[in-house]
């Protein structure tokens, strides 16, 4: 095998690794969520399948696969089937421009450096944004095609919520784009290499604390997680948009949700927390070692894991909002705040660079 074909094979392998990481992310996150919830409620959580309940996701998947697939009589046949597929496809596709590690030649094994991540487009941030906004269609279609009142309400809530919070989400991202001066995610990450004054990491979170908070809140609303899980609010809507779903079709919705969480966290890590540059917020002597041995992807995974823990922590700590409060908060507080943040950032960049 020549080195060129080897490089090509490695690039294909990276795509498969990304795909399987995402598939497994949903399984691991389900377990993590139940274990952390158990810990917070002072009980064990799943404990019976495997040591410490570690094989619980496997049992869950088997159970879901064995169930009978039901479709309500009045449901729209095509759209009812299409909705979960659309949801999960959009979730996977959104990760396509998210890089998860620096360029590497595998210690000189390859003839040119390969990039860890599926692809690197020069408008990567916009691609992520465009595909995430396509994810709403899956949820709204599920709600509409089920021909059930609860589902329809869930779908309508999802669409209104996602349209509202997408604005703050995009505006907070725009501030980072202005700072980094590029739309490519990989270039944004690499613009965060190095330190300020030799000890603070050159991460954009330190220049964009407000933007980061807005992004985190809007991200929770975009992924329909508690405290913003109105599309599936159990006490009000049975299970919201997925009420009528069962078996594999049902399983695809939580899977899409967990993959979206992973994408959100990965984007936050790449744009605000320096991606694979620097382990801790301040300079430590391990940083150059990490760069030298090409272990940046482990740092990246650690940061994503921390962010995901934060997501789960929030879900089991905060009570659900009220729907009108959500709308007021999104339009009257979060959006103006992110617009002011963007304007101030742009003014600052013009003042110091221009």
């Amino acid at each position, binding site marked *: 095998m020549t080195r060129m074909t080897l490089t090509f094979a490695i690039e294909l392998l990276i795509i498969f690794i990304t795909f399987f990481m995402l598939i497994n992310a949903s399984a691991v996150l389900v377990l993590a969520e139940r274990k952390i919830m158990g810990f917070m409620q002072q009980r064990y959580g799943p404990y019976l399948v495997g040591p410490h309940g570690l094989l619980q996701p496997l049992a869950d998947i088997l159970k879901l696969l064995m169930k009978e697939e039901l479709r309500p009589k009045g449901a*729209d046949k095509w*759209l009812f089937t299409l909705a979960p597929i659309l949801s999960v496809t959009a979730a996977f596709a959104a990760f396509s421009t998210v890089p998860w590690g620096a360029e590497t030649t595998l210690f000189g094994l390859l003839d040119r450096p390969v990039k860890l991540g599926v692809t690197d*487009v*020069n*408008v990567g941030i*916009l*691609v992520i*944004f*465009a*595909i995430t*906004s*396509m994810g*709403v*269609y899956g949820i*709204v*279609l599920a709600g*509409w095609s089920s021909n059930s009142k609860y589902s*329809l309400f869930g*779908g*309508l809530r999802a*669409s*209104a919520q996602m*349209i509202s919070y*997408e604005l703050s989400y995009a505006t907070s991202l725009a501030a980072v784009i202005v700072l980094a001066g590029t*739309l490519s995610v990989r270039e944004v990450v690499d613009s965060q290499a190095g330190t300020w004054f030799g000890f603070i990491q050159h991460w954009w979170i330190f220049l964009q604390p407000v933007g980061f908070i807005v992004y985190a809140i809007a991200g929770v609303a975009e992924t329909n997680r508690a405290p913003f899980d109105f599309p599936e609010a159990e006490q009000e809507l049975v299970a919201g948009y997925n009420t009528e779903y069962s078996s594999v079709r049902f399983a695809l919705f939580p899977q899409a949700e967990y993959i979206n969480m992973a994408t959100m966290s990965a984007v936050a890590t790449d744009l605000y927390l320096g991606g694979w540059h620097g382990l801790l917020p301040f300079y430590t002597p391990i940083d150059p070692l990490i760069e030298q041995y090409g272990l940046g992807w482990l740092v990246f995974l650690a940061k994503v894991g921390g962010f995901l823990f934060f997501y789960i922590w929030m879900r089991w700590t905060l009570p659900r909002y009220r729907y009108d409060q959500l709308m007021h908060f999104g339009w009257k507080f979060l959006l103006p705040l992110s617009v002011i943040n963007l304007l101030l950032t742009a003014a600052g960049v013009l003042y110091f660079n221009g």
Partner: protein
Amino acid sequence: MAETFAFYLFSGLAILASALVIGQRNPMYSVLLLVASFGAMAGLFIQLDAPFVAVALMIVYAGAIMVLFLFVVMLLNAPQEDALQYDRTHPFRHPVLMRFGALLAAILVVQLAYALLRAPDLRVPVAGRADASVVGSVAELGRVLFDRHVFAFEATSILILVAMVGAVVLARRESGPQ
């Protein structure tokens, strides 16, 4: 070879989806097919080395269709009801009006063909031009938009603002004496 194939695939999809948008009875399917049509068009733009335009198309148009979707759900909740009856009794179903519509469509096609034949820029592929590397760049697009076309840009944004305020005024419920 692969590029030609992709071109015909995307254009075929776009035309098919657009034709089905108006051929559908169910407004829900029409709306979805419109999204598919925009997706195929975005594919064509990527082939033209304009990824920014492709992504903007997806965000602005395909995203805005979401709102159209809501209108369909909320306002037209009975899609099949009396559709045939509605078609049969529609005031536009007059032979003279139908011929007039066909004439307008024919004129539109002729105009488009004339404009395409007259535009000299279109005969040179983007990759063959001297400024090929700048055409697709976001920075260059922004510069042209906010420099040469700044008046049109500002006029459009004022138009959209007026439309938005108008929509809010029209949608507002008549308030009582308080």
